[in-house]
Every structure is written in C-alpha cells, then in structure tokens.
C-alpha cells in the first residue's frame, strides 16, 4: 500500500537499518537518540566501567515523573484532603497502592543510585579535565534529588511528613542571617500548615522536576562535548602514555590519519562539524574499537531500562509504601525519625543544630562541588591518587556510619539503643 508506505516514509526518513548509513541516520535524524554518537567505543559499553548507574538514575526519574503525574490525578495538596487522598490511593483506587509504591520506592532507589553514580565517577577519576564542570552539574542534580525527596514527603500529610518537615525547616532557620526568613519563605508562614503544603507541592511537582530535567539535558550534552565517557581504568593501565596520541592534535600524523578516516564516513558528521570534540588520548587503531550505537548501545540501555522497571514493579507488588497516622501537630512521635537518607543529618543535628545541621552539611556540599578543582592531580590511575581515594572513601564511610547510627541505634528520645536491645513501647 503506497498510502501507508508514504506515511511511514514521512515519519522515518532514514535508510534501512541493515546499512551502516541507516544505522547512523537512526541516531542523527532522531531528536531523542542523537544525544548518542552514531558509533560508540566498545569499552564504554562495558558494565564494569559505569555499572549503568547514570542511566538507571535517569530511568528512575522518568518513572517518578510518570507515576507522579498519575498520583496528581487524585492528590489534593490541602491539609484536610491530602491524607484522605492518600488513604483513597491505598484502599479504594484501582492500582493505587501499586502506583504509590512505584513512586515511593523509585524515590528511594533514585537517592541510592545518584549516590552510587557519584562514587563511580569519583573512583574512576572521571571528574578530571575536561569533565570538571559536569561533576559540578552532577552535584547539583544530587542536591535536587534530595530536595525532591524532602518536598515529596510532606505531601502525604502523615506524622512522618509533618514532623520531618517541621524539624527540617527548623534546621534551615539556624543558617546565619537569612535562616529565619528562608524558613518563612519556604513555609509561607511560621508553622507547617496549609501554606507550607501548597508551596512544597509546587516545588515537588513543578519547580524541582523541571530543574532536574533541564540539568539532566545539560549533563548529557556535556558528556558528549567532553569527548564521551572517560576511558575505563583498565585501558589506562595497559599502555604507557608515550605510545598514545591525541585525536584532534593536528601536528601528529597519526592523529590526522584517524580523523580523516572518520571524515570519510557518514557517522563522522558530528566530529567534522564541531572540529575536534575529542580530547581523549587514544591509540591510532582505537577507531576500530567502536561499534554502532544501534543496536549495541541501545540494546544495553534497553536492558537497563527493563531491569529498572521490572525490578521496581516487583518491589511495589511485594511492599506497599508506608503511611503513618494523620499529621498531629500536638503529638510528636517518639522517636521522630526522618527517612533513612536524612538520618545521618538528623544524627548530626542531635549534637548541634548549627554545626551539625548547617555548617557541616554546607562544608560537605562545598567540598563536593570543589572536588575537581581541589584535586589537581592529572592522573586517573588508582595507585597515583591515594590521597583522593582515601579522603573520598572517608567521606562515604562517614555518611554511611551516621545513617546507620541514626537508623538502627537511636530509640525513643533519640537515646543510644543498639538494635538488639528491645525497648518496651510506651515505657517512658
């Protein structure tokens, strides 16, 4: 049928995928796919270089947006309605508990994956020149993810929600000079009430997801502009530097050979247009180590996507998202705990609100942002960056230890109670 073929051809304008040209055009001519290069290095597809953590984080975000929009169809951000709507989602909405579970567990997983992704980038030294600024964007994305979680958990308007936000925003008010005003601005008032709920809702469903979306685009774009992913560490170990040349350094004949080879192929278009986006040091035969993004990269990314979705579905069928009692401003639950990823902060705060709640986190964030500018050691080889590895590991371990103490070792009144000691409820 010419009619249908015309329609098909008006949508899909590439050559057949059996040809190399078709495979390249699939990427170039598609607005969603062209964030990929037409050909990718085989080494970048290796699981043990990236663990696909960045992709999984992104997929989780997509899942959060879709399930979040589904939740928005029932949820009303008003104190007298919000908790009611959560109960409806739990008991009377078809698939309600499942959608809520997906949203809740994806949020937890996203926090974990963002963090692990950051660790991967650090340990492989992938924040070094020319990728410094993309690390900074990544740190902002980490903060935004935490912000989404923070604003998200006021929304169910249960006890956890109410007290976590009361405590959390009070921490903010310890910030010097602007603290008090900052809290008032965030809450739209002096206590956590209706004004706070609508503001958190706006941040949670519009402002923060929007910012995450925008920064994600920048993040991905810069991965490409910084010359693709970093080289896996095992490739660095293999060849001494002298044998390598830099693509795009025109003085080297070998380099010219590589780029002219690329020019003669359609998939080299990006490289021709932008001059020399690749700052990586590669050997002349490196070019042969590439494969077409279709199907190799797309297949792997699809598997990561499927794995994420299916894994989350299974978790959401097995476990429902918890919901505590209706928020009660008069009665603070004992112990009042924030979700696990903020319990490290809560542990710090239990020692001092100013130092633990403001100074220490602020220094931590500043240090993270500055990592690529402080660490000026150009080497990415593990054994040449002992200091950096020790320091970062200490940072990770400190965070984990604080979270573990806050989660398992703190009982009523925030007293230090090991998990193996049983506390009789209500004994005060």
């Amino acid at each position, binding site marked *: 049928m010419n009619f249908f073929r015309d329609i098909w051809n008006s949508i899909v304008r590439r050559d057949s995928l059996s040809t190399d040209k078709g495979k390249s055009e699939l990427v170039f001519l598609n607005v969603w796919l062209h964030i990929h290069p037409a050909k990718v290095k085989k080494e970048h597809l290796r699981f043990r270089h990236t663990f696909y953590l960045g992709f999984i984080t992104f997929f989780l975000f997509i899942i959060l947006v879709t399930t979040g929009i589904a939740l928005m169809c029932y949820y009303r951000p008003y104190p007298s309605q919000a908790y009611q709507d959560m109960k409806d989602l739990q008991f009377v909405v078809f698939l309600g508990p499942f959608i809520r579970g997906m949203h809740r567990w994806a949020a937890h997983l996203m926090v974990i994956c963002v963090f692990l992704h950051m660790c991967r980038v650090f340990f492989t030294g992938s924040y070094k020149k020319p990728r410094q600024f993309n690390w900074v964007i990544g740190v902002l994305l980490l903060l935004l993810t935490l912000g989404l979680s923070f604003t998200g958990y006021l929304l169910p308007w249960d006890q956890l929600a109410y*007290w976590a936000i009361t*405590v959390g925003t009070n921490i903010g008010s310890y910030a010097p000079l602007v603290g008090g005003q900052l809290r008032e601005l965030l809450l739209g008032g002096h206590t956590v009430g*209706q004004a706070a709920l609508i503001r958190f809702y706006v941040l949670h469903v519009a402002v923060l997801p929007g910012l995450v979306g925008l920064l994600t685009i920048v993040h991905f774009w810069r991965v490409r502009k910084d010359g693709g992913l970093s080289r896996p560490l095992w490739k660095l170990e293999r060849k001494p530097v002298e044998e390598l040349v830099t693509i795009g350094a025109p003085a080297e004949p070998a380099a010219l050979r590589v780029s002219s080879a690329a020019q003669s192929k359609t998939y080299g278009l990006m490289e021709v247009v932008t001059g020399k986006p690749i700052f990586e040091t590669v050997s002349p035969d490196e070019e042969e180590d590439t494969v077409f993004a279709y199907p190799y990269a797309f297949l792997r990314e699809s598997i990561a996507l499927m794995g994420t979705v299916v894994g989350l579905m299974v978790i959401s069928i097995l476990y429902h998202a918890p919901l505590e009692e209706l928020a009660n*401003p008069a009665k*603070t639950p004992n112990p009042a705990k924030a979700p696990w990823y903020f319990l490290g902060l*809560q542990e710090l705060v*239990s020692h001092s609100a100013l130092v633990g709640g403001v100074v220490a986190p602020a220094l931590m964030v500043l240090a993270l942002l500055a990592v690529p500018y402080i660490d000026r050691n150009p080497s990415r080889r593990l054994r040449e960056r002992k200091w950096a590895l020790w320091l970062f590991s200490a940072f990770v371990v400190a965070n984990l230890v604080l979270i573990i103490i806050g989660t398992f070792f703190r009982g009523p009144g925030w007293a230090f109670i090991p998990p193996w000691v049983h506390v009789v409820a209500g004994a005060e």
Partner: protein
Amino acid sequence: MNRRSFLGWGAAGFAALCSSVAVSFGAVLRYLVPDVFYEPPQTFKVGKPADFAYGPPTFLADEKIYVFRDREKGFSVASAVCTHLGCTVNHFQSDDRFHCPCHGSIFAANGAVVHGPAPKPLPWFEVTLARDGQLSVDKDKVVPSTYHLMV
C-alpha cells in the same frame, strides 16, 4: 555620537538594565512573602481559671502550651515547642521535667535546659485575665519564668 558619550550611555543603559533585573527579582521574592497568614492567632483565650486544676500542668494541643496553676503563685504558661528544632515536648510527672522526643533535649520545670541539644530554655508567655473572666495568653510577649498571674 562620539566614543566617549557612546560608552557613557552604554554604561548607563547597562546599569539601568541590571537594576531593573534586580528590582524585578526583589519584587518576585517579596511576592512570595504572604501579607496575610492563615494561622492560629498569637493571642488567644484558653478558658476560665476554674477550668484548670492544681498540680500537673494542662497541655493545650492546638496552642502548644502548658498551663501551670500553683496554689501560692497562680497561673503561668510555658511553650511546648522545643527550642532545638520545634518538636512538641512532653511534661513527665515522674521527674517534673519536659522531655523532647526528637533529639532528647530535657528541660527543667522552669524551662531551663537540663540536657542538650536545645540551645535555649523554653519560653514563658504572658497570661492575663480578660474582661470576660477568661485567661488570655499572648505568645508574642515572652516573660521570665517567675512571672505569674494570681486570680
């Protein structure tokens, strides 16, 4: 137009642009600060003196205050909001102290911090007798813990 006046006008224009951006920014920020708060009032009546028993303080949940009534000294009102991060403290009769469930602060019966992390004592609020014979509390008026109202 000569080079000098061009630069002058350019600089003036740039300054005007910057200041209008700054003003707009400030205006948006100000927009976000409400002028009307739909919150419980800071001054409120809590009932007739006879409604309150002697002995352990009465906790008023909505107002987050403890009302004390002492035979000799009369009425006094303490805040039930922990000065650390705002959790509601519980008054325990067993030791006549306030305990905060969030991070373990303990306050003495007069509001003083016995155990951190709370940085400040619990504040006491002014309590007066209104014309209609009810007790009236003003949370905007902080008084020393020795303040009492005898009726």
